[in-house]
């Protein structure tokens, strides 16, 4: 069975994993959104039409993509949308807010509406056969449009999270040997995550009490680093790295943090938590939906400066114990969060998507006939049915005679074929006995 996915975590990682394990019965292809837009092109169709499930990852941003959804549904394909971000409640600090909320939306009547990209997204969800998301709140948010909801988390690349260098080695390279590194990394969508939840105040208190602590802030958003109210001697900056190199940065952390603030953050996936687990890093996160399923494998705190301070203090005071526990959890993390080990989860979701589509749309290739109340068929008379229907009855000849004639026909055809020239020693015309006997059998018998 085939998937089509149109991002690293949501698309590339699971797609590659399925293709590595085709014995499970699934394989996957990725098509760029521009390919979906060109859905009538033979080359694009060669890729898409064999698929069993088509997944649009996020970017339903043009009317032609809505047409593509309808088109592939017409070919009997379930088309589902995948979303891993709460586009409907992007904070102002997120550079994408303007695009999703304010770009013009040209509808078929030529009118332009605000909330441009969101309108397309909602219309796409309504057309689709369901929504896949790594967050249950997000599924609930869009239930009004999507109908069916499918919960499917993120899972990590196997090669990136194996054979990681030792923490001591990584710290020596950065020059943080002897320090306690509290680490965090994220994209430009995380600015609000450090406000309003007390982590900045807790960081200040911890740093005053523990001069050996260094906060390592990773990512390309300078604001989080700059606005952390601690001395420059106790914070360091790591710019963004390629995805495959990120695990080596995580593995350097003595303690990892994953603060959340507000409803937007509550709609994230569990990525940070599983990264810490795979990296053998003791971690603290805000209580909530993103880390609910792995709460027992980390420390979750309600937001507030005191709660964060207490949790950080506990980790620092008992660092060796915490790091030993985190290291012991790595095998479990590998089994539970590496994508190749969890493909059955994906397969179950995709099979459900297929089954739901079939139940809602019926199986293809079946014609349904309905009796009509206003129609009375002609009476059936077995004595005249052959004549009436123009059918050929069995000849009134004894079976023994029929067998004799058939045997004679068959022997003749085989012998005749055997007198024909051979080709490289092979009596090739004999291969045609099967067809020839059917022709000869239909010759009227002249006795």
């Amino acid at each position, binding site marked *: 069975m085939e998937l089509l996915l149109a991002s690293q975590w949501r698309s590339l990682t699971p797609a590659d994993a399925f293709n590595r394990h085709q014995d499970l019965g699934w394989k996957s292809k990725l098509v760029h959104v521009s390919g979906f837009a060109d859905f009538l092109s033979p080359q694009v169709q060669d890729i898409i039409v*064999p698929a069993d499930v088509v997944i649009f990852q996020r970017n339903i941003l043009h009317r032609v993509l809505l047409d593509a959804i309808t088109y592939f549904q017409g070919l009997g394909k379930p088309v589902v949308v995948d979303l891993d971000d709460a586009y409907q409640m992007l904070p102002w600090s997120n550079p994408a807010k303007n695009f999703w909320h304010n770009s013009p939306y040209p509808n078929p009547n030529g009118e332009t509406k605000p909330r441009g990209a969101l309108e397309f997204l909602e219309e796409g969800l309504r057309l689709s056969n369901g929504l896949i998301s790594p967050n249950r709140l997000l599924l609930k948010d869009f239930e009004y449009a999507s109908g069916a909801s499918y919960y499917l988390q993120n899972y990590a690349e196997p090669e990136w999270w194996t054979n990681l260098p030792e923490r001591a080695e990584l710290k020596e390279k950065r020059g943080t040997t002897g320090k306690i590194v509290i680490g965090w990394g994220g994209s430009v969508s995380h600015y609000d995550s450090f406000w309003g939840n007390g982590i900045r105040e807790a960081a200040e208190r911890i740093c005053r009490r523990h001069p050996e602590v260094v906060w390592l802030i990773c990512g390309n958003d300078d604001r989080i680093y700059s606005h952390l109210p601690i001395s420059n001697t106790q914070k360091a900056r790591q710019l963004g790295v390629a995805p495959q190199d990120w695990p080596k940065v995580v593995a350097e952390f003595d303690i990892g943090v994953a603060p959340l603030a507000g409803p937007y953050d509550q709609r994230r996936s569990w990525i940070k938590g599983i990264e810490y687990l795979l990296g053998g890093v003791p971690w603290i996160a805000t209580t909530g939906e993103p880390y609910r399923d792995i709460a027992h494998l980390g420390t979750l705190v309600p937001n507030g400066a005191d709660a964060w301070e207490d949790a950080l203090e506990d980790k620092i005071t008992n660092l060796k114990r915490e790091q030993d526990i985190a290291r012991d959890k790595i095998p479990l993390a590998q089994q539970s969060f590496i994508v190749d080990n969890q493909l059955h989860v994906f397969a179950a979701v995709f099979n459900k998507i297929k*089954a739901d589509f079939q*139940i809602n749309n*019926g*199986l293809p*290739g*079946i*014609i*349904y*006939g*309905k*009796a*009509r109340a206003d*129609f009375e*068929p002609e009476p*059936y008379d*077995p004595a005249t*049915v*052959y004549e009436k*229907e123009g*059918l*050929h*009855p*069995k*000849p009134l000849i004894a*079976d023994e005679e*029929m*067998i004799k*004639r*058939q*045997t004679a*026909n*068959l022997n*003749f055809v085989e012998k*005749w074929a055997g*007198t*024909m*020239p051979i*080709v*490289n*020693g*092979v*009596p*090739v*015309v004999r*291969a*045609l*006995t*099967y*067809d020839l*006997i*059917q022709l*000869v*059998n*239909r*010759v*009227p*018998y*002249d*006795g």
Partner: protein
Amino acid sequence: MTADEKDRIIVVSGSKDFIPIIKRLASKGYKFMTVDQTFAKTLADLDLPSAPLSEAMAGVQDRAAYETIKILNAAQKPTSVQAPTTNVSEFMRNNAPIYLYSRIMDLNMVLLALDRVQPELIMVHNDVEPLLRCVALWARHNKVPCLHIPHAIYQDINRGGPGTDVHDIVTASHLAAAGPFQRDWYVKRGFPAKNIRETGLPQHDECTKQIPQRGEARRLLKLDSHRPVVVYVATWPQATNLMGINDEWAVCYLTFLQAIRQLPGVQVIVKLHPRAGQDNFNWHKQKADEANIDYQITAIHNQHILQVADLVFAYGGSNFLLEAASVPGVRLVTTHGYEDDNEVLKIPIDLEMMQRLIQVALSMPAPDMLPFRLKYIGIPDGRASERIADFAEELTNAKGKIQRHPVTGRGSKTVSSELSKVPG
């Protein structure tokens, strides 16, 4: 194909039932060439090492044409073989060359391609259809093992005993038999018993694997879960035997439709053969409409249909009944065939009898089908493909593998150069 790969080539016919077998053999390093062009694409899409046999046909056209002309010339001459009737004699004289003209060139190309490929083994799903008998004949002449993995279990229905029907002609050297019934069937037709292995057939492996739940299958097929479901297995006439050239199959269907009209609670699915063709489909649909019943008609979704069926009705010895026997609780009904098997109820083509017996059958519990299955399809453990793959591998590795005869006439020869040697 590289020279190193040549010794590990298996030529296969285009049966999708072979795919699990091919997968197993591919994992052991075998490569495949397909007689059927489309099947080559199917295997390529599954990333199995394969190519169409046509890839080995480059440059053989001239030689194939030369051989074709020789055959066509011979076909136009009076034959020494006595025809059974004057009409047949005249038919052959007037029509045989025309028929051969359209077919023999393809077969000659296949033979010459096989001469080049020199496979270790040939696997076919029957050895009677022209292309497949052609490759089997090549195998026989070149003493290459040819394994017949039957696509169906034949019975003596609408025909006489051994030696009277085209399906009795055995060309393959080895047979993977479904079970004891099929083994005996072929032994009676002269197949050497020592070359037959009871492996089960790959198409029956699916029956033992997980199939949809009955409730879900009924939902998928939009059926009422409280009313009985009768599946009618449609067919069409075949002219391979004089005793089958009639339309009793059609009257059986028409009678069935009338019987169902008098059983208003019954839900009907008409299951067509996947290769039945559009005319066959249209005819079955039209007659169901004329009978004014509720019905579904389809050529696919076997597994779902079997899961929802309470009773499966087939004209003659349909193999679909063997698949149905794998589903607990399904009652099997036929007009003829399975004569010695009490598990299959026989119903005459009579409206009143048919209606009553369908009603009675639906009210009876289904019999235990295990002995029936063991007889026809062997041990139902879902491992037929494994056993057949092992058998195939043995055939390619067997000690004392048959010495191949040196093949003469290889290499390209132009038509003109050969014709110049033909006297007169």
